[in-house]
């Protein structure tokens, strides 16, 4: 039997900095895919650790859907979000359910066409991006997640390279849609960079 890693009393405990992302909306909006893409990008292309979990059971019924990504340079213990640093809300229900878990000053990315009411808006950095409409113009609402990822990118650019996200998108969407997804990503990114997301 091996007993590993007994630490001496009073030794310094490193608390690893975590960046916590939550994505929530309805099924079909690419909530799970965004989580997977972000997780893969941080893990495989940025050399960080990440844990991605998805809603399961009661939460995944009735169309509600949630995905979480915890990113850290160090070891990640608790795999779920404790206080989100970033929250992407694709529906009013999702926002109402999870807004309380967004830390003060945290980033809230939403689509104003589906999320109208943000309580205590001044507590957060709110970015409104018409992801659905933009996706629709590109080729269909199924590209909403790539638009959202693009709009998100400038907000997390200090942590991740654009190429990492592009690689992860390419690896996680159907091969025949890679090109159009990357275009959706660019469109979202441009929208955010132009300062249109308020």
């Amino acid at each position, binding site marked *: *039997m*091996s*007993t*590993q*890693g*007994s*630490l*001496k*009393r009073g*030794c310094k*405990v490193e*608390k690893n900095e975590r960046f916590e992302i939550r994505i929530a909306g309805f099924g079909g909006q690419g909530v799970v895919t965004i*989580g*997977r893409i972000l*997780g*893969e990008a941080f*893990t*495989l292309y940025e050399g960080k*650790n*990440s*844990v*991605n*979990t*998805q809603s*399961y*059971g*009661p939460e995944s019924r009735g169309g509600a859907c949630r995905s979480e990504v915890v990113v850290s340079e160090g070891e*990640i*213990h*608790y*795999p*779920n979000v*404790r206080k989100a640093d970033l929250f992407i809300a694709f529906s009013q229900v999702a926002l109402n359910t999870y807004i309380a878990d967004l830390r003060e000053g945290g980033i809230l990315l939403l689509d104003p066409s589906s999320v109208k009411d943000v309580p205590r808006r001044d507590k957060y950095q709110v970015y409104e991006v018409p992801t659905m409409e933009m996706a629709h113009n590109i080729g269909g609402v199924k590209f909403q997640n790539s638009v959202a990822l693009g709009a998100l990118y400038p907000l997390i650019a200090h942590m991740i390279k654009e190429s990492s996200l592009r690689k992860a998108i390419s690896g996680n969407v159907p091969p025949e849609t890679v090109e159009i997804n990357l275009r959706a990503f660019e469109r979202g990114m441009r929208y955010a960079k132009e300062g249109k997301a308020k």
Partner: protein
Amino acid sequence: MPKKARRSEAATISPEPHFLKPGKYYLQGNQACIEGALMAGCCVYAGYPITPAVETMEYASKRFPQVGGRFIQMEDEIASACALIGSSWGGVKAMTATSGPGFSLMQEAISIAIMSETPMVIIDIQRAGPGQGYITASQQDIMQARWGHHGDGPIIALAPSSVQEMFDLTIEAFNLSERWRTPVLVMVEETVGHMWESLIVPSRDEIEVIERKKPQDLGIMPQDYLPWGHDIVAPMANWGEGYNVNFVALVHLEDGNISRYSPQANYHCVERLQNKIEGNVNQIARIETKFLEGCKHIIVCYGAVSRTAMEAIIDAREMSGLELGYVRLVTLWPFPEEKLREIIGDVDTIFVPEMNLGMMKHPITEALRDRCRKVVSIPSLGILHSPEYILSKIYEEIS
């Protein structure tokens, strides 16, 4: 009777699996265990779909034929577990994955596998029970793992807590299974099964893979061969190798003779099985500890909950200076009682957070009741505890 020992010529699966190359991967827990199994040389997967273990099965259906192995979707979980017995005696390593209700259906075959000393691996992606329960995370099959099968007889069960461990502990499960000739269970929560995380795959030569000991290797000829004798773990002749093995799960003598039943033969047969595993608990079982020295209060945990427990322990040290010790059971069964008593001297409270209403709390209490003031269960059903919840229960108890 053939006088010559031979290797099976018939076994046509000579896997040269397309193993994952060394490197970093991003995989789901339910998939990582399949990669671990392939790395351990598993050739057969027989299963039946059940939520939340389906991803394992779907992934197996894709991967097994790629490496020259065979995948089959059986008619039910009973058949799946029975097929593993056939495959194992047919000379290959075999596995299945299931969840609560399916695990119940496999208990008959598990019992037969214990008695016939059949190596095989079953992964239980636990869901909440009883009954249909729900498809959410749970640790409610922990006791079924130990006592679910009919009759006495030991079991080995491991509890991974990450995607990496789904890979590592599945390899370990196969190794233990081959080494000790017994079914090995990997008890997973839906949390870990569905989790996506990095997986570091080492090169093949860094991975220890254990193969079953065979009479051919020991120079034992068919006419002298005792399928359940020679050693505490008998060398195993597979079917097709000229040893004329009569597989039995009835009380048997070392040579498989079942006609000379006596209460003494019964005792000897079953006690040997028990001793084989329980008597070697210190070789089989692993635990991990951290921050133990001088702690008044300790958390004993396993599986996904150990990640929350670690988070809570670090929080407590940072925020209130409360020093909590950490003990994680990597192996659930056989229960490492002696080792626990070695490392836990005299403490005030032992907290046992579990995703059930307090199951491992019982063997822990049995092992440590004279070493602490109290053992406190912290249950959670259907969801992983949050660190805050575990801490609130601890503060409630010790304040």
